[in-house]
């Protein structure tokens, strides 16, 4: 379904908002609506136990700014630097009656909290025979481009998309971010909500009211019939730019943003490939055992006879994220590499 179609669903006023503001607004509105929603993590307010002001950060990227003033420290909880304890607290609270939104700050910090994510929260429903709901959201920022170096710039979404029991949401614009966050909070399973760092200031028209975007429904951000491009998170704007450029040459692309990668809207991708016969997948994660590989393998299995050229993946190389800006810029799939891949599949 296109964004235009989705936007029609939301009634009432709207205005231009950043990705950051959209998520912030979703949190405000859901916390107002439902008193069991809480926010916890490091610096979600900031300033606890200091002589300065409350809300000194409002999240290190400012996404939770202002919440503490309306909802107090009872529901906006700064924590020690103890990620296992943060995720564990969220999971334990979720299965006993709250709807916590836990912030992991940088998703790279799953390293010190992964057990509570994949072995605990993700498995509760299954291993306990279907009884508990675990309605929790883990928010974290992903991606390179911020010159934050090897330990703060990874994507890592393939790691969590691999895990049964988790849902994984990766909005690429402010509109989707708000609707998906509201869905995530209302979902009864653990949801990993990944925010792409360099999108925080990107803007678009966002309804002022509450609205939800269902999981597992891709959005077609461009429509065309020559090539299908599936792009993830921060790669969507890049894919759109390439599609727009190629449109000038008469090459028309479907650009598909899955929006949630678990569940994944396989149907939309297959439908598109049935028409175009050509697929390029753009994802910033490292290439091995990746989401790009996953989508490629699904399409190659389910749309085998429609494929007119080998599928091309445009991903990060099999290297850590380098610090030096010149290398970091090469690490992230560039518009040039995406364009080349599109041309390759057209020529093959």
């Amino acid at each position, binding site marked *: 379904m296109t964004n235009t179609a989705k936007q029609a669903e939301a009634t009432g006023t709207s205005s231009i908002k950043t990705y950051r503001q959209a998520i912030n607004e979703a949190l405000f509105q859901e916390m107002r609506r439902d008193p069991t929603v809480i926010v916890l993590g490091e610096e979600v307010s900031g300033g606890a136990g200091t002589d300065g002001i409350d809300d000194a950060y409002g999240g290190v990227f400012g996404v939770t700014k202002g919440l503490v003033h309306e909802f107090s420290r009872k529901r906006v909880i700064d*924590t020690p630097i103890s990620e296992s304890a943060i995720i564990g607290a969220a999971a334990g609270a979720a299965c006993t009656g709250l709807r916590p939104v836990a912030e992991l700050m940088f998703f790279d910090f799953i390293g010190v909290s992964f057990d509570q994510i994949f072995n605990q929260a993700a498995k509760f429903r299954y291993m306990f025979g279907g009884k508990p709901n675990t309605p929790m959201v883990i928010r974290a920022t992903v991606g390179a481009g911020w010159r934050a170096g090897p330990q703060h710039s990874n994507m890592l979404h393939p790691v969590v998309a691999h895990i049964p029991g988790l849902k994984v949401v990766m909005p690429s614009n402010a509109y989707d971010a708000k609707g998906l966050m509201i869905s995530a909070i209302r979902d009864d399973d653990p949801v990993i909500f990944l925010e792409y760092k360099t999108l925080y200031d990107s803007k678009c028209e966002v309804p002022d009211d509450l609205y939800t975007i269902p999981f597992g429904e891709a959005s077609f951000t461009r429509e065309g019939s020559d090539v299908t491009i599936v792009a993830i998170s921060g790669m969507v704007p890049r894919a759109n730019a390439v599609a727009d450029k190629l449109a000038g040459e008469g090459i028309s692309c479907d650009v598909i943003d899955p929006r949630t990668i678990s569940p994944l809207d396989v149907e939309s991708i297959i439908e598109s490939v049935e028409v175009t016969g050509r697929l390029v997948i753009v994802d910033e994660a490292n290439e091995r055992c990746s989401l790009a590989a996953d989508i490629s393998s699904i399409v190659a299995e389910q749309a085998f006879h429609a494929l007119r050229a080998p599928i091309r993946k445009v991903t990060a190389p099999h290297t850590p994220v380098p610090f030096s800006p010149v290398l970091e810029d090469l690490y992230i799939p560039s518009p040039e590499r995406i364009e080349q891949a599109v041309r390759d599949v057209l020529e093959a």
Partner: protein
Amino acid sequence: MRYTPELLIEAYRTMQTIRLFEERCILEFERGNIPGFVHAYNGQEAVAAGVCMHLSDRDVIGSTHRGHGHCIAKGCDVIGMMKEIMGKSTGLCKGKGGSMHIADFDKGMIGANAIVGGAPPLCNGAALTAKTLGTNHVAVSFGGDGSSNQGTTLEALNMAVVLQLPHIFIIENNGYGEGTGADYAVGCESLAERTAGFGMPAVAIDGTDFFAVYEQAKEYIDLARKGGGPSAIEAETVRFDGHFIGDPQLYRGENELDDIKKNRDCIKLFRNRVTAEKWLEAERMDEIDAEVAALIERAVEEGMNAPFPEPADLYADVYKTY
């Protein structure tokens, strides 16, 4: 403290149910009726019983790989447990969890946990629910001496203090983590003191003495209900079986098992005390023994007769919706 006969009978029934349940698990395991990987709780009954008697179904506990005793003390149905341990579809977790993953949310039992140190962070969360919703419920996490060295446990201690959560940490020090001595793996002299260092009340007690456990647990649980925050009890206790059922226990000293079974059997000690104090008659306890034995017999029988899951169950309950 005054102990009513009702309370004593309840305590005795709980401990004896755990004891006979575990002894029977060992037997059924050896007979091949229980698959997998089972860690028996016998020897430690006074801890689970002494703590959980203070808890309602709305209070929450989180447990360990050695969780049968905590489940029984918290009121889980022993027949449902036995079915679960046998992998049957009518088990408490539909056979999906097994011995190391029994939970019963209706009873406030949010899970055994096969990850050492898994429960303390989760119980912080349950305590956070209680605090946020303004109930006076508490959370209790059980963990062993070995689990006390896991980072998740240690983080959870500090977090509980910082957020002043109604969470009582029970450290069951049975002297071993698998085949490694607590004296070796715990670097400090006293786990209670190390825990107190995090900024919460913490004491060491004799975990084979039901009354010591009961009284200390009451104090700390009451404190937590009144908003007094977290606390910890190191219960010094003994494990009667191996780390897992079938463990050759080569790490035991000579006569060690005989000695602890003779001198540190919490159920014997309980019987001695209540008969010496004339609080309960031996006959009354013998009656309970018979009732419990019948219950366990029925659990095994129903367990054996219960159906295994259907193939389609493999795919069920991964998500609520997907």
